[in-house]
Protein backbone atom coordinates (compact mmCIF):
# COMPACT_ATOMS: atom_id res chain seq x y z
CA UNK A 1 0.00 0.00 0.00
CA UNK A 2 1.45 3.31 -1.06
CA UNK A 3 0.51 6.33 0.89
CA UNK A 4 -0.31 9.62 -0.81
CA UNK A 5 0.06 12.55 -1.39
CA UNK A 6 3.39 12.85 -3.14
CA UNK A 7 6.07 11.98 -2.80
CA UNK A 8 4.77 8.40 -2.96
CA UNK A 9 6.07 6.19 -0.22
CA UNK A 10 7.18 2.69 -1.02
CA UNK A 11 5.53 1.03 1.95
CA UNK A 12 2.14 1.21 3.55
CA UNK A 13 1.82 3.84 6.18
CA UNK A 14 -0.79 6.13 7.58
CA UNK A 15 -0.76 9.73 6.53
CA UNK A 16 -0.66 12.86 8.60
CA UNK A 17 -3.87 14.86 8.65
CA UNK A 18 -4.59 16.19 5.14
CA UNK A 19 -3.16 19.53 4.20
CA UNK A 20 -4.16 21.20 0.95
CA UNK A 21 -1.08 21.17 -1.24
CA UNK A 22 -0.35 24.39 -3.11
CA UNK A 23 -1.40 24.10 -6.77
CA UNK A 24 2.04 25.13 -8.02
CA UNK A 25 3.67 22.26 -6.20
CA UNK A 26 1.20 19.73 -7.53
CA UNK A 27 1.19 20.89 -11.13
CA UNK A 28 4.97 20.55 -11.25
CA UNK A 29 4.51 16.78 -11.34
CA UNK A 30 4.41 15.09 -14.75
CA UNK A 31 0.93 14.27 -16.06
CA UNK A 32 -0.11 10.67 -15.46
CA UNK A 33 -1.45 8.59 -18.32
CA UNK A 34 -3.74 5.58 -18.37
CA UNK A 35 -7.24 4.52 -19.35
CA UNK A 36 -8.33 6.84 -16.58
CA UNK A 37 -5.89 9.61 -15.69
CA UNK A 38 -6.76 11.99 -12.90
CA UNK A 39 -4.17 14.73 -12.59
CA UNK A 40 -4.23 16.99 -9.55
CA UNK A 41 -8.00 17.27 -9.59
CA UNK A 42 -9.99 19.31 -7.12
CA UNK A 43 -13.67 20.04 -7.02
CA UNK A 44 -15.26 22.82 -5.03
CA UNK A 45 -18.93 23.45 -4.41
CA UNK A 46 -18.84 27.01 -3.20
CA UNK A 47 -16.64 26.94 -0.14
CA UNK A 48 -16.95 23.18 0.27
CA UNK A 49 -14.00 21.14 -0.97
CA UNK A 50 -15.46 17.86 -2.23
CA UNK A 51 -12.27 16.55 -3.86
CA UNK A 52 -8.82 17.90 -3.19
CA UNK A 53 -5.72 17.45 -5.35
CA UNK A 54 -6.42 13.87 -6.29
CA UNK A 55 -3.91 12.26 -8.61
CA UNK A 56 -3.88 8.73 -9.95
CA UNK A 57 -3.99 6.72 -13.16
CA UNK A 58 -5.45 3.29 -13.75
CA UNK A 59 -5.56 0.86 -16.65
CA UNK A 60 -7.40 -2.37 -17.39
CA UNK A 61 -8.58 -4.65 -14.61
CA UNK A 62 -10.68 -4.15 -11.53
CA UNK A 63 -9.82 -1.33 -9.15
CA UNK A 64 -11.72 -0.58 -5.99
CA UNK A 65 -12.26 2.95 -4.80
CA UNK A 66 -12.73 2.73 -1.08
CA UNK A 67 -14.05 5.51 1.09
CA UNK A 68 -16.64 6.31 3.70
CA UNK A 69 -19.88 8.04 2.78
CA UNK A 70 -19.23 11.66 1.87
CA UNK A 71 -15.56 11.05 1.08
CA UNK A 72 -15.89 12.35 -2.49
CA UNK A 73 -16.18 9.05 -4.38
CA UNK A 74 -19.31 9.97 -6.30
CA UNK A 75 -18.00 13.43 -7.14
CA UNK A 76 -14.83 11.87 -8.47
CA UNK A 77 -16.88 9.43 -10.54
CA UNK A 78 -19.04 12.25 -11.89
CA UNK A 79 -15.92 14.07 -13.03
CA UNK A 80 -14.60 10.92 -14.69
CA UNK A 81 -17.84 10.66 -16.64
CA UNK A 82 -17.88 14.36 -17.52
CA UNK A 83 -21.06 14.94 -15.55
CA UNK A 84 -19.41 17.80 -13.72
CA UNK A 85 -16.20 19.65 -14.53
CA UNK A 86 -13.17 19.64 -12.30
CA UNK A 87 -12.58 22.95 -10.57
CA UNK A 88 -8.86 22.38 -10.95
CA UNK A 89 -6.74 19.76 -12.68
CA UNK A 90 -7.62 17.45 -15.55
CA UNK A 91 -9.52 14.22 -15.96
CA UNK A 92 -8.83 12.15 -19.05
CA UNK A 93 -10.61 8.96 -19.94
CA UNK A 94 -9.12 7.01 -22.84
CA UNK A 95 -7.03 10.10 -23.49
CA UNK A 96 -9.99 12.44 -23.94
CA UNK A 97 -12.02 14.85 -21.88
CA UNK A 98 -15.26 12.99 -21.14
CA UNK A 99 -17.14 16.24 -20.65
CA UNK A 100 -16.58 17.49 -24.16
CA UNK A 101 -15.68 14.47 -26.26
CA UNK A 102 -18.80 12.86 -27.66
CA UNK A 103 -17.03 9.74 -28.91
CA UNK A 104 -15.48 8.88 -25.57
CA UNK A 105 -18.89 9.03 -23.92
CA UNK A 106 -19.80 6.04 -26.07
CA UNK A 107 -16.95 4.08 -24.53
CA UNK A 108 -17.74 4.84 -20.90
CA UNK A 109 -20.47 3.34 -18.78
CA UNK A 110 -21.61 4.50 -15.39
CA UNK A 111 -23.71 2.76 -12.78
CA UNK A 112 -24.77 5.75 -10.71
CA UNK A 113 -25.22 5.50 -6.99
CA UNK A 114 -28.63 7.10 -6.97
CA UNK A 115 -31.60 4.80 -7.23
CA UNK A 116 -33.00 6.46 -10.34
CA UNK A 117 -34.49 4.65 -13.32
CA UNK A 118 -37.24 5.29 -15.84
CA UNK A 119 -39.73 3.70 -13.47
CA UNK A 120 -42.53 3.21 -16.00
CA UNK A 121 -40.36 0.98 -18.21
CA UNK A 122 -39.84 -2.72 -17.72
CA UNK A 123 -36.30 -4.08 -17.39
CA UNK A 124 -36.00 -4.86 -21.09
CA UNK A 125 -37.33 -1.43 -22.04
CA UNK A 126 -34.90 0.32 -19.73
CA UNK A 127 -31.90 -1.58 -21.06
CA UNK A 128 -33.15 -1.22 -24.63
CA UNK A 129 -33.22 2.57 -24.27
CA UNK A 130 -29.62 2.40 -23.07
CA UNK A 131 -28.65 0.30 -26.10
CA UNK A 132 -30.46 2.57 -28.52
CA UNK A 133 -29.02 5.76 -27.08
CA UNK A 134 -25.57 4.22 -27.45
CA UNK A 135 -26.29 3.43 -31.08
CA UNK A 136 -25.26 -0.21 -30.76
CA UNK A 137 -25.95 -2.76 -33.44
CA UNK A 138 -28.91 -5.01 -32.69
CA UNK A 139 -30.18 -3.15 -29.61
CA UNK A 140 -32.84 -5.80 -28.92
CA UNK A 141 -30.34 -8.65 -28.85
CA UNK A 142 -27.86 -6.60 -26.89
CA UNK A 143 -30.49 -5.73 -24.28
CA UNK A 144 -31.40 -9.41 -23.88
CA UNK A 145 -27.72 -10.32 -23.57
CA UNK A 146 -27.13 -7.62 -20.95
CA UNK A 147 -30.10 -8.79 -18.90
CA UNK A 148 -28.77 -12.35 -19.04
CA UNK A 149 -25.52 -11.15 -17.50
CA UNK A 150 -27.39 -9.97 -14.41
CA UNK A 151 -29.97 -12.77 -14.25
CA UNK A 152 -32.92 -10.62 -15.16
CA UNK A 153 -34.28 -12.46 -18.16
CA UNK A 154 -37.44 -13.76 -16.53
CA UNK A 155 -38.92 -10.70 -14.85
CA UNK A 156 -41.56 -10.17 -17.53
CA UNK A 157 -43.02 -6.74 -18.14
CA UNK A 158 -43.17 -5.60 -14.54
CA UNK A 159 -42.17 -1.92 -14.39
CA UNK A 160 -38.77 -1.34 -12.82
CA UNK A 161 -40.48 1.10 -10.46
CA UNK A 162 -41.89 -1.96 -8.70
CA UNK A 163 -38.56 -3.77 -8.49
CA UNK A 164 -36.65 -4.37 -5.28
CA UNK A 165 -33.51 -2.36 -4.63
CA UNK A 166 -31.32 -5.28 -5.68
CA UNK A 167 -33.18 -5.82 -8.93
CA UNK A 168 -32.94 -2.13 -9.73
CA UNK A 169 -29.20 -2.30 -9.17
CA UNK A 170 -28.98 -5.17 -11.62
CA UNK A 171 -30.98 -3.21 -14.21
CA UNK A 172 -28.49 -0.36 -13.84
CA UNK A 173 -25.57 -2.73 -14.32
CA UNK A 174 -27.22 -4.31 -17.37
CA UNK A 175 -27.79 -0.84 -18.84
CA UNK A 176 -24.10 -0.12 -18.34
CA UNK A 177 -23.03 -3.22 -20.26
CA UNK A 178 -24.85 -2.55 -23.52
CA UNK A 179 -22.13 -0.48 -25.20
CA UNK A 180 -19.41 -2.96 -24.26
CA UNK A 181 -17.59 -0.14 -22.48
CA UNK A 182 -13.84 0.16 -22.28
CA UNK A 183 -14.25 2.01 -19.01
CA UNK A 184 -16.89 0.90 -16.55
CA UNK A 185 -17.47 3.06 -13.50
CA UNK A 186 -19.67 1.57 -10.83
CA UNK A 187 -20.75 3.62 -7.84
CA UNK A 188 -21.66 1.27 -4.98
CA UNK A 189 -23.09 -1.33 -7.39
CA UNK A 190 -23.44 -4.07 -4.80
CA UNK A 191 -25.82 -2.15 -2.56
CA UNK A 192 -29.03 -4.06 -2.03
CA UNK A 193 -27.86 -7.29 -3.65
CA UNK A 194 -28.21 -10.61 -1.89
CA UNK A 195 -25.04 -12.66 -1.29
CA UNK A 196 -25.53 -14.85 -4.36
CA UNK A 197 -26.02 -11.87 -6.63
CA UNK A 198 -23.07 -10.10 -5.08
CA UNK A 199 -20.89 -13.06 -5.88
CA UNK A 200 -22.16 -13.22 -9.44
CA UNK A 201 -21.77 -9.50 -9.93
CA UNK A 202 -18.21 -9.52 -8.61
CA UNK A 203 -17.42 -12.42 -10.95
CA UNK A 204 -18.82 -10.37 -13.83
CA UNK A 205 -16.64 -7.40 -12.90
CA UNK A 206 -13.58 -9.63 -12.81
CA UNK A 207 -14.48 -11.12 -16.17
CA UNK A 208 -14.69 -7.61 -17.65
CA UNK A 209 -11.44 -6.64 -15.99
CA UNK A 210 -9.71 -9.76 -17.25
CA UNK A 211 -10.82 -8.81 -20.77
CA UNK A 212 -8.91 -5.56 -20.44
CA UNK A 213 -11.75 -3.28 -19.43
CA UNK A 214 -10.96 -0.64 -16.87
CA UNK A 215 -13.47 -1.42 -14.12
CA UNK A 216 -13.57 1.03 -11.24
CA UNK A 217 -15.87 0.09 -8.39
CA UNK A 218 -16.58 2.19 -5.33
CA UNK A 219 -17.55 0.84 -1.97
CA UNK A 220 -17.61 1.84 1.64
CA UNK A 221 -17.74 -1.76 2.82
CA UNK A 222 -14.36 -3.24 3.52
CA UNK A 223 -15.33 -6.87 2.98
CA UNK A 224 -16.66 -6.06 -0.47
CA UNK A 225 -13.36 -4.53 -1.44
CA UNK A 226 -11.55 -7.68 -0.39
CA UNK A 227 -13.48 -9.57 -3.04
CA UNK A 228 -13.47 -6.87 -5.69
CA UNK A 229 -9.81 -6.89 -6.44
CA UNK A 230 -6.34 -6.37 -5.18
CA UNK A 231 -5.94 -2.82 -6.44
CA UNK A 232 -7.35 -0.24 -4.10
CA UNK A 233 -7.62 3.53 -4.05
CA UNK A 234 -8.54 4.90 -0.66
CA UNK A 235 -10.22 8.28 -0.46
CA UNK A 236 -11.16 10.15 2.68
CA UNK A 237 -12.27 13.72 3.19
CA UNK A 238 -11.88 14.35 -0.52
CA UNK A 239 -8.24 13.34 -0.60
CA UNK A 240 -6.62 10.22 -1.92
CA UNK A 241 -5.00 8.84 1.20
CA UNK A 242 -3.58 5.59 -0.08
CA UNK A 243 -3.24 3.49 -3.21
CA UNK A 244 -1.96 0.01 -3.76
CA UNK A 245 -2.74 -3.58 -2.96
CA UNK A 246 -5.66 -4.54 -0.76
CA UNK A 247 -3.50 -7.04 1.13
CA UNK A 248 -1.26 -4.20 2.21
CA UNK A 249 -4.26 -2.29 3.42
CA UNK A 250 -5.35 -5.34 5.35
CA UNK A 251 -1.89 -5.68 6.84
CA UNK A 252 -1.97 -2.04 7.77
CA UNK A 253 -5.24 -2.66 9.56
CA UNK A 254 -3.77 -5.60 11.36
CA UNK A 255 -0.95 -3.42 12.65
CA UNK A 256 -3.23 -0.95 14.33
CA UNK A 257 -4.83 -1.50 17.74
CA UNK A 258 -8.26 -3.04 17.47
CA UNK A 259 -11.00 -2.67 20.04
CA UNK A 260 -12.86 -5.89 20.80
CA UNK A 261 -15.84 -6.53 23.04
CA UNK A 262 -16.33 -9.85 24.79
CA UNK A 263 -19.44 -10.96 26.63
CA UNK A 264 -18.21 -13.32 29.36
CA UNK A 265 -19.59 -14.57 32.63
CA UNK A 266 -16.45 -13.49 34.55
CA UNK A 267 -14.93 -10.53 32.71
CA UNK A 268 -12.36 -9.65 35.37
CA UNK A 269 -10.81 -13.09 35.30
CA UNK A 270 -10.78 -13.15 31.54
CA UNK A 271 -9.24 -9.66 31.40
CA UNK A 272 -6.45 -10.65 33.76
CA UNK A 273 -5.66 -13.74 31.72
CA UNK A 274 -5.55 -11.82 28.43
CA UNK A 275 -3.31 -9.11 29.85
CA UNK A 276 -1.04 -11.77 31.31
CA UNK A 277 -0.68 -13.36 27.86
CA UNK A 278 0.06 -10.00 26.25
CA UNK A 279 -3.09 -10.10 24.14
CA UNK A 280 -4.66 -6.96 25.59
CA UNK A 281 -3.05 -3.57 25.95
CA UNK A 282 -6.00 -1.95 27.70
CA UNK A 283 -9.16 -3.36 29.26
CA UNK A 284 -12.36 -2.05 30.75
CA UNK A 285 -15.00 -4.10 32.50
CA UNK A 286 -18.68 -3.41 32.79
CA UNK A 287 -21.13 -6.00 34.18
CA UNK A 288 -20.59 -9.07 32.00
CA UNK A 289 -18.85 -7.17 29.24
CA UNK A 290 -15.15 -6.82 28.67
CA UNK A 291 -13.82 -4.24 26.22
CA UNK A 292 -10.17 -4.52 25.30
CA UNK A 293 -7.61 -3.12 22.90
CA UNK A 294 -5.35 -5.61 21.15
CA UNK A 295 -2.45 -5.35 18.76
CA UNK A 296 -2.82 -8.95 17.62
CA UNK A 297 -6.40 -9.65 16.67
CA UNK A 298 -5.56 -12.93 14.98
CA UNK A 299 -3.86 -14.34 18.09
CA UNK A 300 -6.69 -13.09 20.25
CA UNK A 301 -9.18 -14.81 17.98
CA UNK A 302 -7.30 -18.08 18.23
CA UNK A 303 -6.87 -17.88 21.98
CA UNK A 304 -10.04 -16.47 23.42
CA UNK A 305 -12.30 -19.52 23.13
CA UNK A 306 -9.80 -22.09 24.47
CA UNK A 307 -8.91 -19.65 27.21
CA UNK A 308 -12.54 -19.31 28.23
CA UNK A 309 -12.79 -23.08 28.50
CA UNK A 310 -9.57 -23.23 30.45
CA UNK A 311 -10.78 -20.58 32.88
CA UNK A 312 -14.24 -22.10 33.12
CA UNK A 313 -16.03 -18.90 32.09
CA UNK A 314 -18.91 -18.67 29.67
CA UNK A 315 -18.08 -16.74 26.47
CA UNK A 316 -21.16 -15.66 24.50
CA UNK A 317 -19.95 -12.89 22.22
CA UNK A 318 -16.81 -11.66 20.53
CA UNK A 319 -17.33 -8.56 18.44
CA UNK A 320 -14.94 -6.02 16.96
CA UNK A 321 -16.02 -2.49 17.79
CA UNK A 322 -14.03 -0.64 15.17
CA UNK A 323 -13.40 -3.03 12.33
CA UNK A 324 -15.31 -0.67 10.09
CA UNK A 325 -14.10 1.42 7.26
CA UNK A 326 -14.36 4.69 9.13
CA UNK A 327 -11.88 3.45 11.71
CA UNK A 328 -9.50 2.38 8.97
CA UNK A 329 -9.76 5.84 7.43
CA UNK A 330 -9.23 7.47 10.78
CA UNK A 331 -6.08 5.45 11.10
CA UNK A 332 -4.89 6.20 7.59
CA UNK A 333 -5.67 9.88 7.75
CA UNK A 334 -5.10 10.76 11.36
CA UNK A 335 -2.92 7.95 12.59
CA UNK A 336 -5.25 7.03 15.45
Amino acid at each position, binding site marked *: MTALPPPPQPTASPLPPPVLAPAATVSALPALTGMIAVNDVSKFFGSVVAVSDVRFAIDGGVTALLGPNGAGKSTLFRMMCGLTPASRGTVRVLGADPRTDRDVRGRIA*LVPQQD*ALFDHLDAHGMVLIAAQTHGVDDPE*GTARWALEQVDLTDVGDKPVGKFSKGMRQRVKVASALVNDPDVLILDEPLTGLDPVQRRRMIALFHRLGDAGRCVLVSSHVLDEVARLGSRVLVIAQGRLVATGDYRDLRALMDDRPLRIRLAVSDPRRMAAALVERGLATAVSVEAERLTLDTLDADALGRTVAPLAIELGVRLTEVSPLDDDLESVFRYLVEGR
Partner: protein
Amino acid sequence: MTTVEPIDRPSSRPTRRTVPDGRAIALAYRVVLRQLTSVGRIVALTLLALVSTIAGFALGAADADLDAAVRLISGLGFAVIVPVVALVFGGAAIGDLREDKTLVYLWLRPVNRWPLVVGAYLAALTLSAPITLIPLVTAAILTGTGGGIVSATLIAGVVALLAYNAVFTLLGIWLRRFIVWGLAYILIWEGFIALGGAGVARFAIRKYTRSILVDRTGVDLDLADFSMTTSIVVPLVVAVGAVAIGSWRLARQDVD
Protein backbone atom coordinates in the same frame (compact mmCIF):
# COMPACT_ATOMS: atom_id res chain seq x y z
CA MET B 1 -2.43 0.90 -22.33
CA THR B 2 -4.09 -2.43 -21.76
CA THR B 3 -5.40 -4.33 -24.74
CA VAL B 4 -9.17 -4.53 -24.70
CA GLU B 5 -10.74 -7.73 -25.92
CA PRO B 6 -14.37 -8.45 -26.75
CA ILE B 7 -16.34 -10.04 -23.97
CA ASP B 8 -18.58 -13.01 -24.66
CA ARG B 9 -21.44 -11.28 -26.39
CA PRO B 10 -23.84 -13.05 -28.73
CA SER B 11 -22.77 -10.89 -31.62
CA SER B 12 -19.45 -9.37 -32.45
CA ARG B 13 -18.42 -6.29 -30.58
CA PRO B 14 -20.46 -3.32 -31.81
CA THR B 15 -18.80 -0.72 -33.92
CA ARG B 16 -18.16 2.44 -31.95
CA ARG B 17 -20.60 4.97 -33.22
CA THR B 18 -22.45 8.07 -32.34
CA VAL B 19 -26.20 8.30 -32.57
CA PRO B 20 -27.51 10.26 -35.58
CA ASP B 21 -29.26 13.48 -34.59
CA GLY B 22 -32.63 12.43 -35.99
CA ARG B 23 -32.51 9.16 -34.08
CA ALA B 24 -31.49 10.99 -30.92
CA ILE B 25 -34.45 13.36 -31.27
CA ALA B 26 -36.81 10.41 -31.64
CA LEU B 27 -35.35 8.62 -28.61
CA ALA B 28 -35.42 11.71 -26.41
CA TYR B 29 -38.95 12.45 -27.57
CA ARG B 30 -40.13 8.94 -26.67
CA VAL B 31 -38.50 8.91 -23.26
CA VAL B 32 -39.61 12.41 -22.26
CA LEU B 33 -43.14 11.97 -23.60
CA ARG B 34 -43.58 8.89 -21.45
CA GLN B 35 -42.07 10.62 -18.43
CA LEU B 36 -44.38 13.61 -18.83
CA THR B 37 -47.52 11.55 -19.29
CA SER B 38 -49.05 11.36 -15.87
CA VAL B 39 -52.79 11.00 -15.52
CA GLY B 40 -53.04 13.46 -12.64
CA ARG B 41 -51.15 16.17 -14.49
CA ILE B 42 -53.17 15.75 -17.69
CA VAL B 43 -56.53 15.70 -15.91
CA ALA B 44 -55.73 18.76 -13.79
CA LEU B 45 -54.54 20.80 -16.76
CA THR B 46 -57.43 19.69 -18.95
CA LEU B 47 -59.87 20.82 -16.27
CA LEU B 48 -58.08 24.18 -16.14
CA ALA B 49 -58.34 24.54 -19.90
CA LEU B 50 -62.01 23.54 -19.88
CA VAL B 51 -62.77 26.64 -17.82
CA SER B 52 -62.28 28.63 -21.02
CA THR B 53 -64.70 26.37 -22.88
CA ILE B 54 -67.35 26.83 -20.21
CA ALA B 55 -66.79 30.58 -20.22
CA GLY B 56 -67.06 30.62 -24.03
CA PHE B 57 -70.32 28.72 -23.84
CA ALA B 58 -71.63 31.17 -21.25
CA LEU B 59 -70.74 34.13 -23.44
CA GLY B 60 -72.41 32.53 -26.42
CA ALA B 61 -75.54 31.80 -24.41
CA ALA B 62 -75.62 35.43 -23.29
CA ASP B 63 -75.23 36.72 -26.87
CA ALA B 64 -72.05 38.53 -25.94
CA ASP B 65 -70.28 40.62 -28.56
CA LEU B 66 -66.94 39.99 -30.28
CA ASP B 67 -65.14 42.37 -27.96
CA ALA B 68 -66.09 40.33 -24.88
CA ALA B 69 -65.20 37.08 -26.65
CA VAL B 70 -61.73 38.32 -27.63
CA ARG B 71 -61.11 39.59 -24.10
CA LEU B 72 -62.05 36.17 -22.75
CA ILE B 73 -59.69 34.34 -25.11
CA SER B 74 -56.90 36.83 -24.50
CA GLY B 75 -57.41 37.32 -20.76
CA LEU B 76 -58.01 33.71 -19.79
CA GLY B 77 -56.68 31.60 -22.63
CA PHE B 78 -53.46 33.41 -23.52
CA ALA B 79 -52.77 35.02 -20.17
CA VAL B 80 -53.26 31.93 -18.00
CA ILE B 81 -54.12 28.63 -19.66
CA VAL B 82 -51.56 28.42 -22.47
CA PRO B 83 -48.57 29.68 -20.46
CA VAL B 84 -49.39 27.61 -17.38
CA VAL B 85 -49.86 24.39 -19.35
CA ALA B 86 -46.68 25.10 -21.32
CA LEU B 87 -44.84 25.78 -18.08
CA VAL B 88 -45.88 22.47 -16.57
CA PHE B 89 -44.90 20.39 -19.59
CA GLY B 90 -42.07 22.49 -21.02
CA GLY B 91 -40.40 23.01 -17.66
CA ALA B 92 -40.76 19.36 -16.71
CA ALA B 93 -39.49 18.09 -20.07
CA ILE B 94 -35.89 18.13 -18.92
CA GLY B 95 -36.45 19.64 -15.48
CA ASP B 96 -38.10 16.46 -14.22
CA LEU B 97 -35.25 14.31 -15.55
CA ARG B 98 -32.84 16.53 -13.65
CA GLU B 99 -34.92 16.36 -10.52
CA ASP B 100 -35.35 12.58 -10.49
CA LYS B 101 -31.73 12.10 -11.59
CA THR B 102 -32.53 10.12 -14.73
CA LEU B 103 -31.01 12.74 -17.04
CA VAL B 104 -27.72 10.87 -16.81
CA TYR B 105 -29.23 8.08 -18.93
CA LEU B 106 -29.60 10.49 -21.85
CA TRP B 107 -26.70 12.80 -21.10
CA LEU B 108 -23.89 10.24 -20.80
CA ARG B 109 -24.35 9.02 -24.35
CA PRO B 110 -22.57 9.62 -27.65
CA VAL B 111 -25.21 12.11 -28.76
CA ASN B 112 -25.23 15.81 -29.47
CA ARG B 113 -27.05 17.95 -26.95
CA TRP B 114 -29.43 19.79 -29.21
CA PRO B 115 -31.36 16.65 -30.30
CA LEU B 116 -32.07 15.92 -26.63
CA VAL B 117 -33.49 19.40 -26.14
CA VAL B 118 -35.46 19.29 -29.39
CA GLY B 119 -36.87 15.85 -28.51
CA ALA B 120 -37.91 17.05 -25.06
CA TYR B 121 -39.40 20.23 -26.51
CA LEU B 122 -41.43 18.28 -29.04
CA ALA B 123 -42.70 15.98 -26.30
CA ALA B 124 -43.86 18.99 -24.28
CA LEU B 125 -45.58 20.40 -27.38
CA THR B 126 -47.27 17.07 -28.07
CA LEU B 127 -48.98 17.14 -24.70
CA SER B 128 -49.63 20.84 -24.27
CA ALA B 129 -51.08 21.44 -27.75
CA PRO B 130 -54.23 19.32 -27.52
CA ILE B 131 -54.84 20.22 -23.87
CA THR B 132 -54.89 23.93 -24.67
CA LEU B 133 -55.86 24.31 -28.30
CA ILE B 134 -58.96 22.10 -28.34
CA PRO B 135 -60.69 23.78 -25.37
CA LEU B 136 -59.65 27.28 -26.51
CA VAL B 137 -60.76 26.88 -30.10
CA THR B 138 -63.96 25.26 -28.87
CA ALA B 139 -64.48 28.25 -26.58
CA ALA B 140 -63.98 30.61 -29.51
CA ILE B 141 -66.55 28.69 -31.53
CA LEU B 142 -69.04 28.60 -28.65
CA THR B 143 -68.95 32.37 -28.25
CA GLY B 144 -70.73 32.47 -31.61
CA THR B 145 -69.00 35.68 -32.65
CA GLY B 146 -67.73 34.62 -36.06
CA GLY B 147 -64.92 32.86 -37.81
CA GLY B 148 -62.29 35.54 -37.24
CA ILE B 149 -61.89 34.79 -33.57
CA VAL B 150 -61.64 31.07 -34.24
CA SER B 151 -58.78 31.39 -36.72
CA ALA B 152 -57.14 34.05 -34.54
CA THR B 153 -57.30 31.73 -31.52
CA LEU B 154 -55.83 28.88 -33.52
CA ILE B 155 -52.93 30.90 -34.95
CA ALA B 156 -52.17 32.70 -31.69
CA GLY B 157 -52.42 29.42 -29.81
CA VAL B 158 -49.91 27.66 -32.04
CA VAL B 159 -47.49 30.61 -31.88
CA ALA B 160 -47.86 30.89 -28.11
CA LEU B 161 -47.32 27.17 -27.57
CA LEU B 162 -44.17 27.15 -29.69
CA ALA B 163 -42.71 30.10 -27.80
CA TYR B 164 -43.80 29.31 -24.25
CA ASN B 165 -42.80 25.65 -24.44
CA ALA B 166 -39.33 26.55 -25.71
CA VAL B 167 -38.80 29.23 -23.07
CA PHE B 168 -39.99 26.96 -20.28
CA THR B 169 -37.96 24.01 -21.57
CA LEU B 170 -34.94 26.28 -21.28
CA LEU B 171 -36.05 27.28 -17.79
CA GLY B 172 -36.29 23.61 -16.79
CA ILE B 173 -32.77 22.99 -18.04
CA TRP B 174 -31.32 26.00 -16.27
CA LEU B 175 -33.17 26.30 -12.98
CA ARG B 176 -34.16 23.81 -10.35
CA ARG B 177 -37.23 25.79 -9.26
CA PHE B 178 -38.50 26.30 -12.78
CA ILE B 179 -42.16 26.30 -11.72
CA VAL B 180 -41.63 29.20 -9.33
CA TRP B 181 -39.66 31.23 -11.87
CA GLY B 182 -42.08 30.36 -14.63
CA LEU B 183 -45.05 31.48 -12.57
CA ALA B 184 -43.19 34.64 -11.68
CA TYR B 185 -42.70 35.30 -15.40
CA ILE B 186 -46.34 34.60 -16.23
CA LEU B 187 -47.97 36.37 -13.33
CA ILE B 188 -45.57 39.16 -12.45
CA TRP B 189 -43.75 39.98 -15.69
CA GLU B 190 -46.43 39.31 -18.28
CA GLY B 191 -49.40 39.93 -16.01
CA PHE B 192 -48.18 43.09 -14.35
CA ILE B 193 -44.89 44.68 -15.37
CA ALA B 194 -45.29 44.15 -19.13
CA LEU B 195 -48.60 45.98 -19.01
CA GLY B 196 -46.78 49.09 -17.91
CA GLY B 197 -45.80 50.30 -21.37
CA ALA B 198 -45.11 49.40 -24.97
CA GLY B 199 -41.34 49.20 -24.44
CA VAL B 200 -41.55 46.58 -21.71
CA ALA B 201 -44.43 44.78 -23.38
CA ARG B 202 -42.33 43.78 -26.37
CA PHE B 203 -40.47 41.43 -24.04
CA ALA B 204 -43.66 39.54 -23.23
CA ILE B 205 -44.92 36.73 -25.46
CA ARG B 206 -48.43 37.70 -24.53
CA LYS B 207 -48.17 40.97 -26.46
CA TYR B 208 -47.65 39.04 -29.67
CA THR B 209 -50.61 36.72 -29.15
CA ARG B 210 -52.80 39.73 -28.37
CA SER B 211 -51.58 41.37 -31.56
CA ILE B 212 -52.64 38.32 -33.58
CA LEU B 213 -56.09 38.45 -32.00
CA VAL B 214 -56.38 42.16 -32.79
CA ASP B 215 -55.15 41.70 -36.34
CA ARG B 216 -57.64 38.94 -37.13
CA THR B 217 -60.69 40.32 -35.30
CA GLY B 218 -60.28 44.09 -35.37
CA VAL B 219 -61.05 44.35 -31.67
CA ASP B 220 -59.05 47.00 -29.87
CA LEU B 221 -56.81 45.61 -27.08
CA ASP B 222 -54.17 47.58 -25.21
CA LEU B 223 -50.51 46.98 -26.07
CA ALA B 224 -51.31 44.84 -29.11
CA ASP B 225 -50.11 46.82 -32.07
CA PHE B 226 -47.67 44.53 -33.86
CA SER B 227 -48.26 43.41 -37.40
CA MET B 228 -49.29 39.82 -38.08
CA THR B 229 -45.85 39.03 -39.49
CA THR B 230 -44.03 40.42 -36.48
CA SER B 231 -46.43 38.66 -34.12
CA ILE B 232 -45.61 35.32 -35.68
CA VAL B 233 -41.92 35.72 -36.51
CA VAL B 234 -40.72 37.14 -33.19
CA PRO B 235 -42.13 34.31 -31.02
CA LEU B 236 -40.72 31.77 -33.47
CA VAL B 237 -37.30 33.39 -33.22
CA VAL B 238 -37.65 33.32 -29.44
CA ALA B 239 -38.48 29.61 -29.63
CA VAL B 240 -35.47 28.79 -31.79
CA GLY B 241 -33.24 30.92 -29.56
CA ALA B 242 -34.49 29.27 -26.41
CA VAL B 243 -33.85 25.79 -27.83
CA ALA B 244 -30.36 26.85 -28.95
CA ILE B 245 -29.51 28.35 -25.56
CA GLY B 246 -31.00 25.30 -23.86
CA SER B 247 -28.73 23.03 -25.91
CA TRP B 248 -25.70 25.15 -25.05
CA ARG B 249 -26.66 25.11 -21.41
CA LEU B 250 -27.31 21.37 -21.32
CA ALA B 251 -23.80 20.70 -22.62
CA ARG B 252 -22.41 22.67 -19.68
CA GLN B 253 -24.90 21.40 -17.13
CA ASP B 254 -23.86 19.65 -13.96
CA VAL B 255 -25.68 16.33 -14.06
CA ASP B 256 -26.40 14.27 -10.95
